[in-house]
Structures are given as structure tokens and as C-alpha cells.
């Protein structure tokens, strides 16, 4: 009798250990996976004499904010000489402006594609998507010539305009998926109650799709914030250079100031960290909406 009572219990224990082992294994795999990123962030907070020394110092002995002080020119006697504030201004301006325009324009188009049947529906949709498949270099080279003609080279407005166009396709795609999740019956009852198309969109569908707009906005913002290829071709001076291009300031012919570079990298990933914390769970919804429901 005692055996009969023990048996299921032991089995339950083994299953429990097995579960624990899986959990621990997954955490270890993910930690190894995240290690390169963690290493970069730690490097920014380490004193200069611990970086790139032989033999290497694996575990940081102390953490300092010196690298950030140098970056902003706060340390007396030493400054990196990199115009961080200008880069911050340019990056924020281009990312915010392009994101808001792309969201407004992309949400409207996404709504049209999800709700209405019109001539060349699929052709226009594919055309918009394909514009995103153009590699940055292929687009950036002629853009440089065209923008030079209109005096837009090395301006933040010009760069924001390019990022708007680059961000529209993905926004349209995401919003199309989001609007498809909202039942059409809602619009139809609104039409019956005398709403026009515009009112139905503005008062009924848009408020319901706001979480989707937020998700699309975050993707657009990060895409613009992190863009390098086109920016490297059409920005020339701190007047319009953004963070990704500015990272090159830390390189010289033979050496790289890894400490300064990691410090600026940490500044660059701050918005991404905030967004990931904000939308951690929602992120997937936007991408997989429309996977099961057409």
C-alpha cells in the first residue's frame, strides 16, 4: 500500500525536475544568445584601463559613468569631440517626423486595403510592398543625385522625407492586418445609422485599431532611428548626421575608440529599451494578426 502511494508521487517529482531542467536550459541558451549585447552595454560603464588590455579583464571590477561624461564633454580636460547633441537632435527629428507622417498615411492606406475592393487592389498593394524590397544602396545612390538638385542633401527634412517613404510599406501591411481583425459589421451598422465612410473610419475603426497604430509606430520609429545606408549617402555634416552615421566618428585609420562607441551605443538603444518594455507582449499581435484570419 505504501508503494502504491509513493509511486505517483515520485513520478510527479520526476516530471517537475524535468520541467525545471527545461526552464534552466532555455534561460542559459538565451543568456548566451544575449551575451554579445550585454558585453557592449557593460563596456560602456567600465573604466578605460579595463578595455582591450592583455590579458583581458573578463569580470568588470568597477563601473563608472566616465565614458558618458566624456561623450557629453562634462569631464574637464578630456572630451571625445563628437557632436552628440546634434546627432541626438537630428536622429529624434527625422525619426519622429517620418514616423508621424508614415503612420497617418499608412493607416489610411491600410484601412482602404482591408475594407474596400477597388480596381488594381492587389497590384497597388504589391507595388507598395515591393518599394520596400529595393536595397538601400540602390535607392540611396540616385536619391543623392535627385536630392542634390533640390537642395535636400544634408538636411534633416530631406532625410525625414526618405524615411517616411521607406516606412510606409510596413505600416500599410501591419495596419491592413489590424483592420482585418475588426468586424465589418461595425462599419455596416454605422452606415445604416447614417455615418459617412470618413466618419465610420474616424469614429469607429481608428479608435479600435489604436493599439495597432502604436505597434506600427514603434516599428517605424526604430527603423528610422537605426537606419544607416541611406543616411550615410545623403548626410555629410553634423547639420544632418544621425547616430548610426555618427558612430564612425569613433573610428580613425588604425584605431577605434571602443569605449566612446559603446557609450554612444547605449544612448542609441535607450528608445528601443523603453519600447520593448512597453509593448513586449503586444509586439507579436501586430505581426501575426491576419495570419489565421484572412
Amino acid at each position, binding site marked *: 500500500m505504501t508503494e502504491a502511494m509513493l509511486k505517483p508521487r515520485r513520478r510527479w517529482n520526476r516530471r517537475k525536475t524535468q*520541467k525545471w531542467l527545461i*526552464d534552466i536550459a532555455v534561460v542559459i*541558451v538565451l543568456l548566451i544568445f544575449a551575451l*554579445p*549585447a550585454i558585453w557592449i552595454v557593460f563596456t560602456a560603464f567600465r573604466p578605460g584601463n579595463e578595455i582591450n588590455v592583455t*590579458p*583581458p579583464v573578463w569580470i568588470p571590477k568597477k563601473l563608472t559613468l566616465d565614458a558618458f561624461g566624456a561623450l557629453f564633454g562634462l569631464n574637464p580636460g578630456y572630451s571625445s569631440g563628437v557632436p552628440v547633441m546634434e546627432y541626438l537632435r537630428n536622429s529624434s527629428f527625422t525619426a519622429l517626423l517620418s514616423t508621424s507622417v508614415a503612420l*497617418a*498615411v499608412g493607416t489610411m*492606406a491600410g*484601412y*482602404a486595403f482591408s*475594407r*474596400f*475592393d477597388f480596381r488594381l*487592389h*492587389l497590384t497597388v*498593394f504589391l*507595388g*507598395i*510592398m*515591393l518599394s520596400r*524590397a*529595393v*536595397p*538601400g*544602396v*540602390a535607392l540611396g*545612390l*540616385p536619391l543623392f*543625385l535627385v536630392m542634390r538638385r533640390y537642395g535636400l542633401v544634408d538636411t534633416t527634412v530631406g532625410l525625414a*522625407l526618405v524615411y517616411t*517613404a521607406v516606412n*510606409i510599406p*510596413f505600416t500599410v501591411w501591419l495596419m491592413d492586418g489590424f483592420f482585418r481583425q475588426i*468586424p465589418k*459589421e461595425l462599419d*455596416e451598422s454605422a452606415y445604416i445609422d447614417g455615418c459617412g465612410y470618413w466618419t465610420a473610419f474616424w469614429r469607429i475603426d481608428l479608435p479600435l485599431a489604436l493599439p495597432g497604430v502604436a505597434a506600427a509606430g514603434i516599428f517605424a520609429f526604430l527603423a528610422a*532611428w*537605426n537606419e*544607416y545606408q541611406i543616411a550615410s*549617402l545623403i548626410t555629410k555634416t553634423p547639420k544632418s548626421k544621425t547616430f*548610426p552615421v555618427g*558612430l564612425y566618428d569613433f573610428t580613425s585609420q588604425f584605431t*577605434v575608440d*571602443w569605449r566612446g562607441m559603446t557609450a554612444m*551605443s547605449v544612448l*542609441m*538603444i535607450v528608445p*528601443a529599451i523603453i519600447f*520593448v*518594455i512597453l509593448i*513586449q507582449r503586444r509586439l507579436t499581435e501586430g*505581426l*501575426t494578426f*491576419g*495570419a*489565421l*484570419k*484572412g
Partner: protein
Amino acid sequence: MTDIQTTETPIAPAGQTAKRTRGEFYRRQSRFPLMLIAPAVIIILVVVAYPMIYSLYLSFTPYNLLRPEKTLVFSVDTMFRNYGKLLGDRIFWRSVGNTVIFLAVTVNLSYFIALGLSQLMALVSRGQGIMRTLLMIPMMFAPVLVGFQFAWFFNATVGLVNNALIALHVIQSPKPWLIDVPSGMISIMIATIWMNIPMLTIILLAGTLSLPREVFEAAEMDGAHAWQKFRHITMPLLRPFTLIALTVLSLDIARAYDIVRIMTGGGPAHRTEMIWTYAGRLATRDSQYGLASAMSMVGVVLGVVFTLYLFRQLIKSRVVY
């Protein structure tokens, strides 16, 4: 697309007729949707289509930025000269080959690693939040950062990889990872795959978690093994999610340019040259815009064909499910 609009109507008590009137109901007001898509289409036409058409025109001329007046001439006799030049250029063929190998390896490996990781993460009972956060860390890094980061890790003299391998006595002297063949290419692939994995894994994980449990329970009753369940239930049901993941990846695949540009710049001696780095160098360093434009066109065609193929699959799967 047209089919979807009509086939998914959930009410349909009156069958066919209800569907048809419904379609007409939406079609009647044809100005409103056109108004909605007009701004998006105009911006894309101005910022993407116009420069690309200009680029196509340039690819038929010997345009050189240093001698613009003399070289921006179009004549039918010489219009394919740039393309002819490319056909006979060994570095061009090398860059095409490298690009195709690079895309094939990174897309496939990224997908399979992400698939494995998502299945592993689906088994986890506690701490989903922490694991997702850990997984998303590489997503926060700009591709440029990923490039610099791995360039530093694989650096011959101060790199983390050499330091670690020497400390562990795996190798005796530092290895120049980014210079040797094929380790240079492999290093770039590792960086790209590292960057691709989070997004793919998140989509596949969301897909896996949304699959109906009853199907798996039924399969277990019939005595299916874990592998059989994975192969015959999970994989087919994940298909739409797989296509979404690959489409997102394909839309961003050219971001890999940042990584190649920073880690090796296509060198040394064109060992890691890709279409993008070669075209970029021809234009910015050699000022040969005509030739670079011809090369861009090859890259565009490759990208468009790849994306078009994936979108066709995606639309097909949307209709089926």
C-alpha cells in the same frame, strides 16, 4: 485579395446573394478608398519610384560624377555597355555569388534556429516575460551597432573571440577571423543571423502558442511521438506564421549591408564582396554612377523576385486558412 473579401463574410444567411450585394456595397463608393491610398502612393512614387527610374536611365549611360557633362549622354548604341562590362567583370560575378550564398545561408539558418528556439521556449512554464526580454535584446541594436560589435569581437588583436579561445587553449596564436577565407564570410553570417533570430522566434513562438491543443491531444491518444507531432501537426499549422516571418525578414534583408560594410567593407581583396558593397564603392569611391546603377538594378531584381515569391505564398496561405 478580392476573394478574401467575399469568402470570409461571417453572416451570410442568404448565401451567394448576400455576398454579392456586400461586394457591390463596398465597390460603389470607389472614390473614398482611392483618396485614402493616394498620399501613400504619391510619396512612394516621388521618393522611391522616381529615383529608381532615374537610376535605370543612368544605368544606360556612362555617367561619371567627376565629369558629369561629358558622361551623362544616352545613346542607343552604347546603352547596354555597363551591363556588358558587368558580365565580363570577375569581381561582379564573385559579388553575385557571395550575395546568393549569403542570403541562402542566413535566411535558412536564421529560420531553423528560430524554429528550434521557439519550440524550446513554448515548453517553458515559468518566466515567459524574462525569456522574451532576453530574446529581444538583439532587436534593440541597430544593424550598424551589430556590425561594429561583431567587428570588435572578431578583431584579430583585441577581439573577444581570440582572447577567449587563447585563454581556453583552443588556439595558440590570434587568428585574423575577418581576413581569412572562409572565416570572414562566416563571421558576417553569424552577426546577421544573430540579428535576425529574435523577430523570427517571436513570430514563430506566437504561432506555436496559438495552435489548438485538441489536435495535439488527439495525436497523443493515437500514440504519436514528439517528432511526429512536430512534423505533421506543428509544421503545417505554422505555415502562415512561417511565411509572415520570412516576409518580414525579406523586407529587411538588405539591412545586412550595414553589417558587411562595417565588418569587412567587402574586402580584403573582394573576399566578402556583395552586390551592395560593390555598387556602393563603385559610386562613392570611383564616381562611376552609371556602372553602379547597372549593378543596383541587378540587386533590385534579385530583391524584388525574392519578395514577390514570398508574397504570392503569403496571399495563397491567407486564402486557405
